[in-house]
């Protein structure tokens, strides 16, 4: 039995649920959302995956995939040198073809943010439309098993170092044990920790870790919860848990985003991360986005791929389209 307790007064939740925002009103709301039929959802995702994207549509799609990538390195073995190398790849994905667009952002651990910012130099978008953003994972990524103070310090530290985007993880343990209020409060607090000295905010992506939530009903509830608490983006996975992003899960999250837009007119971003390695798969995601929320979402501020090896496969496909021949792994740079 959970005791009713105050839930942080997040603007969106207040507007939707009214002023008496408590854990029980939040729980009632989330539990009242219609269920998901797993078989039907997976069939719909599979059907979207059979779209045949050819010629001019494929050319456009490949370039757009690159522009939507958060080029990622999240290893214990990361070094400033590795991060500089990643940034160089982000700036010039294909040295043999300088018309190749740049990726949306680089995504690193918090302590690597200064090196990423430095390596980007004038190409650092810093929240503007031009250039490349720096995204940092925070809040005791990937498990999220730390006290709130540690999570907030982790976040504030990355923002202070120049991170434009924060990828936080929700407390899956709390979510699965039904403590929605706790998860909600933590997101609200992290959002506040994204505030910069000048009053602006770093973009907040909320990672649901759908592989641990396990059911589609949970994914749907967690998506609503994250949006209500103030997330700018909802993101599938850390990439450290299998399964990571899947097409049905992403479709489901896009449906929530579509419903939120219908309800409020506000646009929330979606980021599938982990496990998307081929252009063919990535194109299925573009199709799913375009046919679920609309083509307007195929922009870096509303849709991202969290990926590392995907970029090289797209570059190989891109080379194939311009030369008519497949090259090979040695014709793209490893990072």
């Amino acid at each position: 039995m959970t005791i009713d307790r105050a839930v942080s007064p997040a603007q969106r939740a207040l507007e939707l649920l009214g002023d008496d925002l408590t854990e029980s009103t939040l729980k009632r709301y989330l539990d009242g959302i219609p269920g998901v039929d797993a078989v039907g959802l997976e069939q719909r995702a599979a059907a979207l995956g059979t779209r045949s994207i050819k010629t001019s549509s494929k050319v456009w799609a490949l370039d757009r995939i690159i522009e939507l990538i958060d080029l990622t390195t999240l290893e214990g073995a990361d070094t400033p040198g590795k991060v500089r190398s990643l940034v160089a790849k982000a700036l010039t994905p294909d040295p043999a073809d300088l018309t190749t667009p740049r990726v949306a952002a680089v995504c690193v651990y918090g302590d690597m943010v200064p090196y990423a910012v430095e390596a980007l130099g004038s190409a650092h978008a810093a929240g503007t439309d031009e250039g490349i953003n720096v995204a940092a994972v925070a809040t005791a990524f990937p498990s999220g098993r730390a006290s709130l103070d540690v999570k907030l310090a982790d976040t504030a530290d990355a923002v202070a170092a120049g991170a434009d985007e924060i990828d936080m993880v929700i407390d899956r343990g709390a979510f699965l044990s039904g403590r929605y209020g706790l998860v909600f409060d933590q997101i609200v607090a992290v959002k506040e920790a994204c505030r910069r000295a000048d009053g602006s905010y770093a973009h907040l992506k909320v990672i649901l870790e759908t592989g641990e939530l396990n059911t589609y009903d949970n994914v749907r509830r967690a998506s609503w919860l994250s949006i209500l608490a103030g997330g700018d983006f909802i993101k599938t996975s850390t990439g450290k848990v299998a399964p990571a992003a899947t097409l049905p899960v992403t479709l489901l999250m896009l449906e929530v985003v579509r419903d939120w837009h219908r309800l409020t007119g506000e646009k929330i971003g979606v980021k599938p991360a982990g496990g998307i390695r081929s252009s063919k798969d990535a194109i299925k995601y573009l199709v799913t986005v375009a046919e679920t929320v609309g083509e307007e979402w195929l922009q870096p501020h509303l849709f991202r791929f969290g990926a590392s090896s995907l970029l090289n496969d797209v570059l190989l496909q891109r080379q194939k389209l311009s030369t008519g021949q497949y090259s090979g792994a040695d014709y793209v740079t490893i990072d």
Partner: protein
Amino acid sequence: MSFLDYAPAPESTAILDLKPEYGLFIGGEFVAAGGESFTTISPATEKPIARIAHADSSDVDRAVAAARKAYEKTWSKLSGRDRGKYLFRIARLVQERARELAVAESLDNGKPIKESRDVDVPLVAAWFFYYAGWADKLDYAGLGANPRSLGVAAQVIPWNFPLLMLAWKIAPALAAGNTVVLKPAETTPLTALLFAEILQQADLPAGVVNIITGAGETGRALVNHPDVNKVAFTGSTAVGREIARSTAGTGKKLTLELGGKAANIVFDDAPIDQAIEGIVNGIFFNQGHVCCAGSRLLVQESIHDDVVERLKSRLSTLRVGDPLDKNTDVGAINSAEQLARIRELSDIGEAEGAERWSPECSLPADGFWFAPTIFTNVSTSHRIAREEIFGPVLSVLTFRTPAEAIAKANNTPYGLSAGIWSDKGSRILAVADKLRAGVIWANTFNRFDPTSPFGGYKESGYGREGGRHGLAAYLKGGDL
């Protein structure tokens, strides 16, 4: 150009090796017919595909005689295991030539290639595989030891799933030890004739399956032929009635699979996004040319506006056009005649006061096309809520309680299929128990499997196809 205007992705017709004209397939060979041949066209372009033979009554006599001879001399004498071998061989050949069959089906019928490729042809192979397995196990069909075949089966099939309906008819008939004379629909004979080539490839003994093309009078001559033992018909209720009358008292065993006006019931606790997909699949699959189509949407009043709004936005993403384009969702209407009927009933719907809505979509100039359409504010007394339209037209009605949903769903002369959408398992079972329909889908729609019997109540016909029940329809010893 926007991304959603996907670049054309047409399936090539180069794989087809069609003859300019086709004869009748009688006694294992293509032979000339007595009647004046006719042209089969592509409904998407109105361009001719091939000349097709027209069987007259003497051709029907020849075909039935060939089937009788094959029954007496070979097929009834073969062991079940050997019959099974032929059926397995046919199933494998269908798989090998799947792409070709899919292209031919979409060309001749107008259905989108993604449906012929992903639904029709795989199910055709599945039907033959399934009944191939039964051929040597008839003792275990629940009809006692060593059940006997009937003899010659006369089979008349419709144009909506030309090859699939052929498989539904031929596979159980052959497995049970009968021989067959089959007449495909006048507007869609092509895949049946390609199937005849597959039978030659499979080396099926001559006369076991005979395929005769023609129009209504050919079918009439076939089902009324005195030497057939079994009549199986899928098509309109009017023709079904005529067949029931003419076969009465002849001792011919009869199965009829006729029209429908299925209710798709959506409760307020339904998984809403999947229900929307199911509604779309229920009525716009195969341009609504489906006897079990969910053409009456019964929505709980409390969620009516939300469902209609979601449905409209989903319909706006449907792609209507070239059936051979891999991204097409809704293809061409099968014939000018059918298009005229859909238009007529839709106009009546409007005149009766229902509210008509279609998404904006540009339809090709040539060919037979009808935009996906939904009618709201439909009452149970409207003709569009009573009559089978057999096109991409959905009538939306509302209900307030489960009892009212059941009453409205059953308030139809038909009884072929129904759908229930709810998150509550006990409600699904309770409602399904009270619906008078042969097939009831729960949280899905228009799914088919050879192991599952299919057939209707009331004016939707009698007898079952598919599963063990479908086998019993071709054996002596009564129905299951």
